[in-house]
């Protein structure tokens, strides 16, 4: 322990300026956010880029501290005095870990606790989530920076490595965007954890290797190898087979959780596509009516794919397109977009065609259903956090929103209310629509009990579905203090795909129509 503390004290003495600067940056950020929370109307006069800089300074200073601490006993140079001194690598590593815990983890933890407490949440109740954030900062920031630091001997070399890695990532991302891909979510929570775990183990392995062996070429080879593997993963498009495996077709006789009915398009005038005649691609949109979703369910369309077959033997299949439509109980119209080559369109425009549209979907059921009564101002909601609704005084069109502030992170949640139970005042000169149920959801989901952030508070906003409101004189009562809302947790009941077939279609009829998602 003595050697650990000696090395630690030496590092503190050496890097006291960097440590003070880092603590100052974090403190300034915390103070600014708290000030803004306390005075939401004040703007503080800080330009946006300075606000961003202030937010980034903390993590940047942590990276700097990790680099400086590791490189103070450089692991790549054969001229370092410490190599021929009675340093024990375990104690050296422990001293560096202690440095990181005290000057990276502790400031983050303290900032997290301050923000939680300031938001009305007791930090002790969320200790597991706070420790999870500590684990994330180690995996996302400390270990990768330490991995680069153990194979370099100066901060300039680290910057060059970072620049190289950044350029490489940007290059791979650019290449990836050029490759036709099907961006359909096919991963699961487990695969996220697995990737993160592998990443952490590889980084940790590199650090341990260098502290025990001091042979930098192996970790450097690992970094290059990992870059190649990541590039391969990014550049290999998600294949139709992978999607088919993730969203298997319904079994014979198995009913889909919703009905999909093609809406007959309005015949187009002969010169309908003239506006885009010069384009190489022709954009079409196929209107489909979705209905029949059970009252306690939600269907999320993860992606669609359209296969076209013409009577004269032409064939064309689109890539998978991720639309993220939410199909609620009741009726909705969705427009399936597709973009086809103009040459194919020209060949097929006068020939009856067969359209086969595949919908990859996730069926969620409501679980853990509970009813809350909204209140004026902010009010606590068990299992959520602190929520608020719009004041009855605001414009009636803005009374369809409920906001919630979650400790640590927002969980996927479904919300609905009956318009008949609305406590909002009647809108003068407007006709109240028939009683109906309005739905809202918050479905963003990341792995783990918390996301990595200095502010461990997330805000979710529930926008309730807007019934077809084209009639300006009809309104549907919104959510006001006193309106009961049913909240539930979506649970995946089924992940599958289903198809809709349209025979004898004329592609010209699907040229752009100003129709998007709407409920009826």
């Amino acid at each position, binding site marked *: 322990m*003595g*050697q650990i503390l*000696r090395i630690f004290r*030496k590092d503190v*003495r*050496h890097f006291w300026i960097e440590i003070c600067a880092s603590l100052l940056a974090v403190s300034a950020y915390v103070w600014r956010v708290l000030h803004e929370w306390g005075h939401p109307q004040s703007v503080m006069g800080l330009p946006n880029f300075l606000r961003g800089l202030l937010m980034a300074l903390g993590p940047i200073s942590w990276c700097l501290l990790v680099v400086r601490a590791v490189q*103070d006993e*450089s692991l790549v*140079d*054969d*001229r*370092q*005095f410490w*190599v*021929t*001194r*009675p*340093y*024990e*690598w375990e104690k050296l590593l422990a001293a560096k870990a202690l440095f990181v815990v005290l000057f990276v983890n502790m400031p983050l933890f303290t900032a997290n606790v301050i923000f939680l407490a300031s938001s009305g949440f007791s930090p002790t109740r969320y200790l597991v989530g706070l420790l999870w954030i500590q684990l994330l900062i180690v995996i996302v920031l400390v270990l990768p920076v330490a991995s680069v630091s153990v194979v370099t001997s100066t901060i300039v070399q680290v910057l060059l490595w970072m620049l190289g890695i950044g350029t490489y990532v940007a290059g791979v991302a650019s290449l990836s965007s050029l490759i036709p891909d099907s961006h359909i979510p096919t991963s699961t929570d487990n695969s996220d954890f697995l990737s993160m775990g592998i990443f952490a183990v590889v980084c940790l392995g590199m650090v341990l290797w260098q502290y025990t062996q001091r*042979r930098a070429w192996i970790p450097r080879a690992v970094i290059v190898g990992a870059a190649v593997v990541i590039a391969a993963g990014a550049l290999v498009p998600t294949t139709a087979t992978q999607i088919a495996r993730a969203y298997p077709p319904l079994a014979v006789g198995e009913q889909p959780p919703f009905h999909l009915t093609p809406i007959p398009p309005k015949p187009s005038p002969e010169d309908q596509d003239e506006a885009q005649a010069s384009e190489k691609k022709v954009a079409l949109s196929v209107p489909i009516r979705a209905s029949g979703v059970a009252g306690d369910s939600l269907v999320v369309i993860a992606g669609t794919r359209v296969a076209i077959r013409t009577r004269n033997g032409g064939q064309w299949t689109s890539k998978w397109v991720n639309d993220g439509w939410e199909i609620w109980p009741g009726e909705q119209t969705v427009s399936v977009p597709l973009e086809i080559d103009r040459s194919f369109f020209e060949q097929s425009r006068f020939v009856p065609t067969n359209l086969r549209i595949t919908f990859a979907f996730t069926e969620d059921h409501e679980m853990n259903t509970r009813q809350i009564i909204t209140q004026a101002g902010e009010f606590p909601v068990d299992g959520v956090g602190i929520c608020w609704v719009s004041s009855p005084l605001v414009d009636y069109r803005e009374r369809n929103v409920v906001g919630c502030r979650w400790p640590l992170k927002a969980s996927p949640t479904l919300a609905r209310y009956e318009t008949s139970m609305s406590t909002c005042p009647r809108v003068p000169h407007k006709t109240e629509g028939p009683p109906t149920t309005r739905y809202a959801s918050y479905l963003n989901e990341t792995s783990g009990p918390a996301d990595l952030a200095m502010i461990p508070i997330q805000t979710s906003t529930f926008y309730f579905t807007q019934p077809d409101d084209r009639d300006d004189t009809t309104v549907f009562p919104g959510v006001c203090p006193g309106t009961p809302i049913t909240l539930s947790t979506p649970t995946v009941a089924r992940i599958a795909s289903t198809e809709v077939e349209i025979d004898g279609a004329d592609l010209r009829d699907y040229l752009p129509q100003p129709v998007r998602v709407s409920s009826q």
Partner: protein
Amino acid sequence: MSSPIRAENLKKRFRRVDAVNGLDLEVPEGAIYALVGPNGAGKTTAIKVLMNIFQPTSGRAEVLGTDSRKIHGKSFCSIGYVSENQRLPDWMRVDAFLAYLRPFYPSWDSELEDDLVSRFDLPRDRKLKQLSRGMRMKAALAAALVFRPRLIVLDEPLGGLDPLVRDELIEGLLDRAEEATVFISSHDLAEIESFASHVGYLEQGRLVFSEQMGALAGRFRDVELTFDVSPILPGEYPDSWMHLNASAAVVRFVESQFDEGRTSSQITQVFGAPRNVAFAPMSLRSIFLAMAKARRSTS
């Protein structure tokens, strides 16, 4: 007598270069062993392999009875290592540097620390980066001697230093030499000669010879033969003769296996009876140069 340093067929290869190529070495306990050799001979690499800064490609070495590949951590409580291009924590003051190292060594001698600081005239309140090269080297040596190591390893410690600093360093080193084995690599052959007890000559990664300084000095002689008329240089002569050359009536060569009776007899066999024969002892530098030139002309 055990050997603080022993190497058997030690090799270190960097890509296509054999920096150390089958080094066999045995340093006697209590010796002041000087490893000499031309630039690029592999002296520094050999020392770094012994100190486990580099891993050997093959062969093995033992330092204080421990496999060189296992030399780390506490092993260095008994080894004081100083290298001319070692990177010291320049931001530290001399005082803080010594204070930082002190708890690492159970055998740290605070009285000796004061003595060395005083003898080397080290300014305790100056940062290492503010010191001259000589002063930095003295600080490094002080930090390597003050814990009374059993083995002191010095890699080119005298290079580029002024004579005064060199003398101070050597004096400081000799004071400790009674209780330690010293292994030193250096180009400064004149200085080495004044205090080394053993010498090893390294060339192209191999040890060409390794022996006691007295024995080495004893077996090398500058031989000068004076004749009445200019002699004809023979085509064949003993292998131990190096750089045989004639100038008018004088023949000179270096005898590398000097034995007065035997050498005189060989001279008589090759040249007959010269008018005068003179055997002059050689400096280490002269021996080193003779060896280097002989090997260069052979290769």
